């Protein structure tokens, strides 16, 4: 028998270009294989993971490998578009860049001189927020933010306020050393590949994984134990775990005493304007009782041994440590498993058992890592004590209106176990740890013709830092940093369109959006948002006068813009994944990365960041022009190399020029920097020294290293804030203290929800929607193989998720006698949708869910009108409103977390009825014209020489 001859050695391409994936925000390194086609043009032939890259070490997810089809998508925009039909119609004419940029300059130039706040500039999930915010600040509008406010600000803010860093993509479990991993409410997260790789490593070591999620798919499917919790009750469950651990004394007293504010004394004088704040010495340093001397002392004094049980009698009053308050609160029977179990849908014995497992992992499996280190008090520890239990959480917790406090509760749990930054626990990635106090505060000071008085976003420390005008009205169009949501650290993008439409707190002129599908899946109550974008006043003018949008593809939002600035694909432009922003660091290393044009665009499109650089120069914005008014940067690549945020610190940390030649971290700009990145695979990485890799907030070796490479300018060790003073300051105001006072209708809510210690309260929608009429929780999940709305233009990915059934738990399925192929009407207080259903047994019995953002508007994304995405696919967003239903108090409460303003996507309550199968899913949002035509019928993607 002879074997046919086959080519066993095909070359994947003629050349490899190493850059960074952008099929999602995980930012994996990719090897792009380029091959010359018959005409001699280099084309993208194959994309695989870069093995040397710190994020993905060679692996890629489904989207990453399918990037080639995204890059070649028929939905790519081809030239700037000027609207010719009514908004929403998708009728445009293609225009040249000169005309497009002139249109923008003509509008925004005069606006800047008169009312810069009338420009609202909001961006989606790009990774150039340090750049876009710099531009907006130079322009002078206070109305800038990225998407974090509706995404996961609860997670970010709770983490940073509590421990100076968050889960999200800012930290990671110590995958190599942990002995138990517990994951709450995560489908994909931004760290898509690292989490999967981490789970794989745990599985290889046989380490137990506990998944807490109403739905058992993805990570929860591989979890050894699944806790199918009732949505919105995680906080209660976590506080019950804390109750069990405290009751058993299974907490890390030494860690709590040294590294947290548990021993710090709380002012307990009810008459004091500082009631509930922490006692400080004359220099403002928090006071603890020193076990060595029995006397009060500054927490960081040399040799001090903070007493967890500290009490101080002063002027007839006893001030007690934070830890006393913790014990008082969480030992209460209200948190006993048998009390909370039924609300959470978890058997009380199970809560006890999980608490026992946590304790077992943290304490019985503890070990010493043989690395000496010195803490901020100057004390040297001969080894690093492990607490090998780790946690991760994401939007399942944060996208609820009690998400901030729930995330705080989870951090409290981690900290009580002594596991944060301990070997085997949760570890920060540089530039974290960084306490809230080291972040900027928000600024909203507008002077026409001038830059804003400081960065837009930041971390307030109390009422004084709110963004309010003289008259107490909101300074920002999204009403971020107001009494309704004082700690809205990422802004509130989800409120922009409705506030702009209502002219509340003031009307705007131009809505400038970048990379956010706000007319579709990014908005709550999508149909209404479409109406607001197209609504006209008595003169027939649009209520939101001018909409400029940058997208790379023919999305739903494109149809609602007056002017569209077409971006390139991710393989055709420069991008900067910077330490100033959301870098690609690992717990053991600082790292940043670039994207660079590995192929040239074949259309009249420009990288949006370069367009902003150009606009900055045309508008004469400071930072974008030289003294003589000429453009400071040629394009974004030029900015990446030559911009300096602080002396010696620029967008990219690798290959800068130091005193003795090339250096990393701090240094002057290097003209060859981008070439150096390209040669190094598109990224730069510098390892954290071994003795600095754990206990980073208190580890002087880390602090000094971080200053060295320019993460911050001076060492800033700090204590974890179990007791959060900023929260308490707002409570104090609500109690009547201080000159800035909340409106009366908000006092009670602030008093309850802005508690300085983690609490749980039911999701706010529960108080508005009748739980009897709307008994079911409705959720969405990210599919691993799709990125929001963009995946559907990808010929490969859309076959995996071409439509999205609503999954119903077996009990509900049987109760309504559903059969395969049936449809249901799902109704909330705000609206109804009619959608296909499917059954799932491994699902919380009060919960239904669907994959996120699969539904598409007819005509978008170069798809056929009868594409399944448009006919059977649907958005849950139609059922969700940015305001809660009226409850008869004459007020409309926002559907957000009262602390941060985080959109409460997952608070939604619905009812379900069986209906006869319609021809398509409802509501029908109509059809938009396609400025790019339709995709080809057949595709066989192969580059042939």
């Amino acid at each position: 028998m002879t074997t046919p001859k086959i080519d066993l050695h095909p070359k994947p391409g003629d050349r490899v270009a190493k850059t960074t994936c952008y099929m999602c925000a995980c930012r994996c390194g990719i090897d792009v294989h380029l091959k010359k086609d018959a005409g001699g043009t280099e084309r993208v032939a194959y994309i695989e993971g870069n093995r040397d890259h710190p994020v993905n070490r060679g692996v890629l997810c489904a989207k990453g490998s399918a990037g080639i089809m995204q890059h070649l998508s028929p939905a790519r925009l081809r030239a700037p578009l000027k609207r010719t039909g009514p908004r929403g119609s998708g009728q445009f004419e293609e225009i040249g860049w000169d005309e497009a940029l002139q249109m923008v300059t003509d509008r925004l130039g005069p606006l800047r001189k008169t009312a810069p706040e009338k420009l609202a500039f909001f961006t989606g999930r790009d990774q150039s927020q340090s750049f876009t915010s710099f531009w907006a600040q130079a322009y002078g509008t206070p109305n800038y933010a990225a998407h974090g406010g509706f995404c996961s600000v609860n997670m970010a803010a709770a983490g940073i306020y509590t421990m100076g860093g968050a889960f999200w993509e800012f930290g990671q479990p110590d995958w190599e050393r942990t002995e138990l991993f517990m994951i709450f409410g995560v489908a994909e997260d931004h760290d898509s590949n690292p989490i999967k790789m981490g789970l794989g490593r745990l599985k290889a070591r046989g380490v137990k994984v506990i998944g807490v999620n109403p739905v058992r798919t993805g990570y929860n499917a591989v979890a050894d134990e699944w806790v199918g919790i009732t949505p919105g009750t995680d906080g209660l469950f976590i506080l019950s775990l804390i109750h069990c651990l405290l009751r058993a004394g299974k907490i890390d007293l030494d860690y709590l005493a040294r590294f947290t504010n548990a021993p710090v004394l709380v002012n307990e004088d009810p008459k004091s304007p500082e009631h509930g704040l922490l006692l400080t010495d004359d220099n403002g340093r928090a006071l603890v009782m020193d076990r060595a001397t029995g006397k009060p002392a500054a927490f960081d004094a040399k040799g001090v041994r903070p007493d967890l049980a500290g009490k101080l009698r002063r002027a007839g009053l006893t001030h007690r440590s934070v830890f006393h308050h913790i014990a008082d609160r969480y030992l209460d029977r209200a948190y006993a498993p048998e009390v909370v179990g039924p609300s959470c849908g978890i058997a009380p014995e199970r809560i006890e058992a999980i608490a026992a497992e946590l304790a077992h992992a943290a304490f019985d499996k503890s070990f010493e890592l043989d690395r000496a280190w010195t803490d901020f008090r100057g004390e040297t520890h001969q080894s690093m004590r492990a607490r090998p239990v780790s946690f991760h959480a994401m939007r399942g917790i944060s996208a609820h209106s009690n998400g901030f406090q729930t995330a705080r509760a989870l951090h409290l749990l981690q900290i009580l176990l002594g596991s944060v930054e301990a070997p085997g626990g949760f570890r920060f990635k540089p530039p974290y740890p960084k306490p809230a106090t080291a972040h900027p505060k928000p600024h909203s000071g507008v002077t026409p013709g001038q830059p804003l008085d400081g960065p837009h976003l930041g971390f307030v420390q109390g009422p004084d830092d709110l963004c309010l005008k003289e008259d107490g009205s909101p300074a920002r169009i999204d009403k971020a940093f107001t009494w309704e949501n004082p700690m809205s650290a990422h802004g509130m993008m989800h409120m922009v369109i409705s506030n702009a439409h209502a002219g509340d707190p003031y009307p705007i002129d131009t809505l400038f959006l970048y990379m956010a599908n706000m007319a579709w899946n990014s908005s709550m109550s999508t149909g209404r948002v479409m109406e607001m974008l197209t609504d006209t006043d008595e003169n027939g003018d649009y209520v939101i006068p001018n909409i400029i949008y940058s997208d790379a593809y023919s999305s739903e939002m494109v149809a609602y813009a007056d002017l569209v600035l077409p971006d390139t694909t991710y393989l055709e432009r420069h991008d900067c994944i910077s330490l100033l922003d959301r870098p690609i660091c690992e717990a053991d290393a600082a790292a940043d990365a670039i994207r660079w044009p590995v192929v040239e665009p074949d259309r009249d499109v420009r990288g949006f960041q370069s367009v902003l650089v150009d606009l900055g120069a045309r508008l004469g914005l400071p930072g974008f022009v030289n003294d003589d008014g000429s453009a400071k940067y040629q394009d974004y690549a030029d900015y990446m190399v030559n911009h300096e945020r602080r002396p010696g610190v620029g967008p990219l940390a690798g290959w800068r020029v130091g005193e003795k030649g090339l250096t990393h971290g701090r240094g002057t700009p290097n003209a060859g920097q981008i070439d150096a990145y390209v040669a190094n695979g598109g990224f730069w990485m510098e390892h954290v020294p071994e003795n600095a890799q754990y206990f980073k907030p208190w580890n002087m070796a880390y602090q000094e290293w971080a200053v060295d490479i320019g993460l911050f300018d001076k060492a800033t060790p700090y204590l974890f804030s179990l007791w959060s003073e900023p929260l308490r300051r707002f409570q104090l105001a609500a109690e009547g203290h201080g000159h800035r006072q909340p409106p009366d209708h908000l006092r009670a809510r602030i008093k309850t929800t802005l508690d300085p210690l983690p609490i749980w309260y039911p999701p706010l929608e529960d108080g508005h929607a009748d739980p009897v009429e709307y008994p079911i929780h409705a959720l969405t999940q990210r599919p691993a193989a799709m990125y929001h709305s963009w995946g559907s233009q990808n010929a490969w990915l859309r076959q995996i998720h071409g439509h999205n059934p609503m999954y119903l738990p077996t009990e509900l399925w049987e109760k309504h006698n559903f059969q395969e192929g049936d449809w249901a009407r799902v109704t909330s207080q705000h609206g109804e949708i009619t959608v296909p259903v499917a059954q799932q047994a491994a699902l919380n019995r009060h919960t239904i869910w669907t994959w996120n953002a699969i539904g598409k508007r007819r005509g978008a994304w170069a798809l056929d009108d009868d594409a399944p995405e448009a006919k059977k696919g649907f958005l849950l967003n139609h059922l969700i409103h940015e305001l809660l239903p009226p409850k008869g108090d004459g007020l409309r409460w926002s559907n957000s977390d009262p602390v941060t303003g985080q959109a409460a996507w997952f608070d939604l309550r619905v009812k379900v009825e069986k209906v006869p199968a319609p021809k398509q899913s409802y509501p029908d949002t109509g059809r938009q014209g396609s400025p790019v035509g339709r995709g080809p019928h057949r595709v066989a993607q192969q580059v042939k020489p």
Partner: protein
Amino acid sequence: MTALPETTERKLGLVIDLDTCVGCHACVTACKGWNTQNYGAPLGDDDAYGAAPSGAFLNRIHSFEVQPDEGAAQTVHFPKSCLHCDDAPCVTVCPTGASYKRVEDGIVLVNETDCIGCGLCAWACPYGAREMDPIEGVMKKCTLCVDRIYNEALPEEDRVPACVRTCPAGARHFGDLADPDSDVSQLVAARGGMDLMPEQETKPVNKYLPPRPRDEIDVLAPFLERVDEGPKGFLGWLDRALERL
């Protein structure tokens, strides 16, 4: 050619860990990407942007639910590609000899230039591992990345199937299952690797590692003894504990 070799020198194949697969479909598109550019005709997609898109894929991820007699239902993500069977019925039915099993490594391949696209081999495969290309009209199937695993144009570490190289969770393993000392054979032995549809007597080379038991409580974790009832008792304990620090 359609006669099966008596034995093959090696039995290259995949070991797929159902305990670890998170169902991310990464292996699906990595496979599509590599095999669209390489071995044989590109994997086509029909009605690619239309109402009923349908393309050829060599590897697909199904998801199953298992309802045990007691306890919560479990979800198992289930990747499936050709299992490179020892007794491959797809080979013997082929009228043209286009389908064959390689003597040297046991890989089952389709020689596309000989294939008439009759589809019989796909009928003969119990696993649904063969798909007709909608554009080229030839039978496509997993090649075990035969053009990667020996490929001297690739760095040595990359000479593994595209799906294995990309799997973020590390749920896919590649190796010689004829060699009892290979990593894959040892995994199979340690984890009770199993055959799919053994009653079909195809003797698959690929093995599946079953999910580990789910929802079991760690019996080693001791029950949490209470230090003392109530906050008062607790503070007493705290004092004692702090003394010991």
